[in-house]
């Protein structure tokens, strides 16, 4: 595993639950940008709201540890990526992932995996799902410990009553 301090990109995708309208544009952008393979699927929260469920690119990825073929690996940027050639579609990673973000993709018989749109990020861009987000709910932010008050993303969730929609 590469030394975390040497990582070139330390930004991750963050979702502001207050702003998400459940429009599924992020999933569409992922689908179109990855040649019709959807790495990001909208997840339903207890059947009352639709939210994007995206890969956290963990520092110690459980999916990579579980993969029997070594298809999942952490690249020089710290992105958890999957080699399409090695993946056999056993979906062990789907089971191992604590966030449930690796969906089943029956079309190709392999497990799709978010690559944080590495092609765009290394060129200085932002992932497709963040670029396309219609409400500004998704952002691509630097991972750092804030000196001030902790930022509580999604903290207004109770005021916006995701629960109320039931």
């Amino acid at each position, binding site marked *: 595993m590469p030394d975390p301090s040497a990582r070139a990109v330390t930004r991750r995708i963050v979702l502001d639950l*207050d*702003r998400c*309208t*459940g*429009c*599924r*544009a992020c*999933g*569409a*952008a992922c*689908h*179109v*940008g*990855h*040649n*019709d*393979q*959807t790495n990001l699927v909208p997840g339903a929260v207890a*059947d009352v709201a639709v939210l994007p469920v995206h890969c956290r690119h963990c520092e110690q990825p459980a999916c990579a540890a579980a993969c029997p073929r070594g298809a999942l690996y952490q690249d020089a940027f710290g992105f958890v990526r999957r080699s399409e050639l090695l993946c056999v579609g056993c979906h062990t990673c789907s089971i191992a992932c604590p966030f449930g973000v690796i969906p089943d993709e029956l079309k190709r018989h392999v497990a799709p995996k978010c*690559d944080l*749109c*590495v*092609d765009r990020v290394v*060129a200085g861009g932002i992932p*497709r799902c963040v*670029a*396309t*987000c*219609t*409400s*500004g709910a998704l952002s691509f932010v630097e991972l750092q410990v804030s000196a001030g008050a902790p930022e509580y993303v999604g903290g207004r969730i109770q005021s*916006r009553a995701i629960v109320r*929609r*039931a």
Partner: protein
Amino acid sequence: MTSPGRSICPFCSMGCTWRLARGSSSPYLGEPGVATLDYDAEGGPNRGSLCAKGNVALELMTHPRRLEEPLVREAGRARTVGWDEALAYVARGLEGLRAAHGGGAIGLLLGPHLTDEEAAAAVRLARGIGTPHVDLCEPEDHAVLSGIEFAAARPARVERVEQIDAMNALLVVGDLLTLAPCMAKPVLNARYRDRRHLLAVLSPTRTRTAWFGRPALRCDPNAEAAALALMLALALDAGGSAVPAWGEDARRALSAWTVTELERRSGLAVERATAVVAALRAGPSAGVLLASEFGGTARMDLVAGLAALLAEAVGARFLALLEGANSGGIRDLLLAEGFAGSAGHTTPELLEAAVTGDVKALLVFGADPVAAFPGTIASQAMRTASLTVVTAHLPGVSAEAAHVVLPAAVFGEKAGTIRGAFGSPVLLAPAMAPPGRARPDLTILEALGAGLPERSAPAAADRPARTGAARGFLAELDLFLHAQGREAAAREPGTHLLLAEASATNAAEGSLTGQLSWARYAYPEPLLGLSTAHAAALGVRAGDRVRVRSNWGQTDLRVRVDAGLPEGVVTAPHRDPAVRALLRWRREPTVRSLDLRPDRVSLERLAEDDRA
């Protein structure tokens, strides 16, 4: 302004732009030179965002089923022909009909995705043929635009998306965030800039937009017009120096209705309406946003007109989001040129005239009337007319019924200007060449009009004067409020009101969006919304199939249980052709537009073995 390589999303009138990037370094799109879609953070009101529909915009250009050759269908057999032969066939047909029945036997229907130049060329073609029948072919937009026109309201317009960001009170009518998801960014910016800011959403059901409403103004199903009438009455009562010229007329017309009576008709609490009107009036910056996506209310024209009047009365800026990218621009042009119902038929009248045989030829440019209109009127019209010509970029139900199909270019393949919701012209530049022998509609229209005589516009005196005041509109509102009371009283037991709800597929695209990969993936099938109590009474659970019957047709739909639905109401997405077949075809005589009235339906649970 649009630079080469930048294109515009055709799926609603917001006018979102996106860029075309060539050659991708994506590990999945490893082929250099393949065009890919990129997000355009600089230009356009979307500021880089694109909704699920917008993300498949590139697929329109590269779709494997794109029409590439002109087709002529004779005696049920289609054959591919060259452009010269196809155009000569159409010209011959038109000449024959014109000689036998006069120019008035030919009608033109314009799709909402034509550029201003193409609409102008259609006007020239109609003049050359000598027909007064040209109109916009998009039912919801047509109703909304007719209503605003009929109300003769002149509110200040939202000119830039940044104005919405800075607003401190917003009233949203219609399911704005389903029709135009990219509006979420400015609307939520305004809402969250300060927690005291108001985002009122008027809706009978819990739509995606109503979810964000603070307050969410719940009115009775089908009573948006009554709720807006209540708010208008309150706004006029509050008075002030800025009451518009029509204010006195409106006050007199609405004085027949007490506030309590309007409250009863609309189901909207007076206190909530008063608070919203006060916030809108207080300013300093308020807005009324209307989407032509109403959860299938009757009289969309009244709702649209009232929203515009209310905006003017409270001094708020007004924005009407439409289904078609250039619906507003096309209809403005047609009205200015003396078409679109002034002298000739409107689209619903034209379809009726085609069914009765008064109109013999239908020339459809960039539209799919069979998919867009409820019931079977458009398919009957296409069958009965002796010459039907359709320009299209993908095969659709109208193209399948037409005698001549001409392959057309889409946005991104043609030049021109359009005017989106914000009213300013947007210049389109072609980024790609159309596939095969497809041509822009402008070329087709000009070729068809080439041999025809030049005729000038009818003199201004020949055109009926536009009403200066909202008097006719207010009389119509009065009738509606009376009728609504009667309708509520005459509710038949055992039937349910089918409220047609928004879905992100697009009417004008109709059969088209169904052919796009993401649309199929994200919106796999239409679901019937049932309240929890109703589902329990029927003995069905989410996912079960139910047969829905109206007086006009029947269809089987899978059930979605929605705890937020009012009593006696079921919902289904009205963009779906199967659901459209359940809805009533009714032309509203005053505005001569379509009245998409929600219908009474009865439900029957399907047994296991009935499931296909």
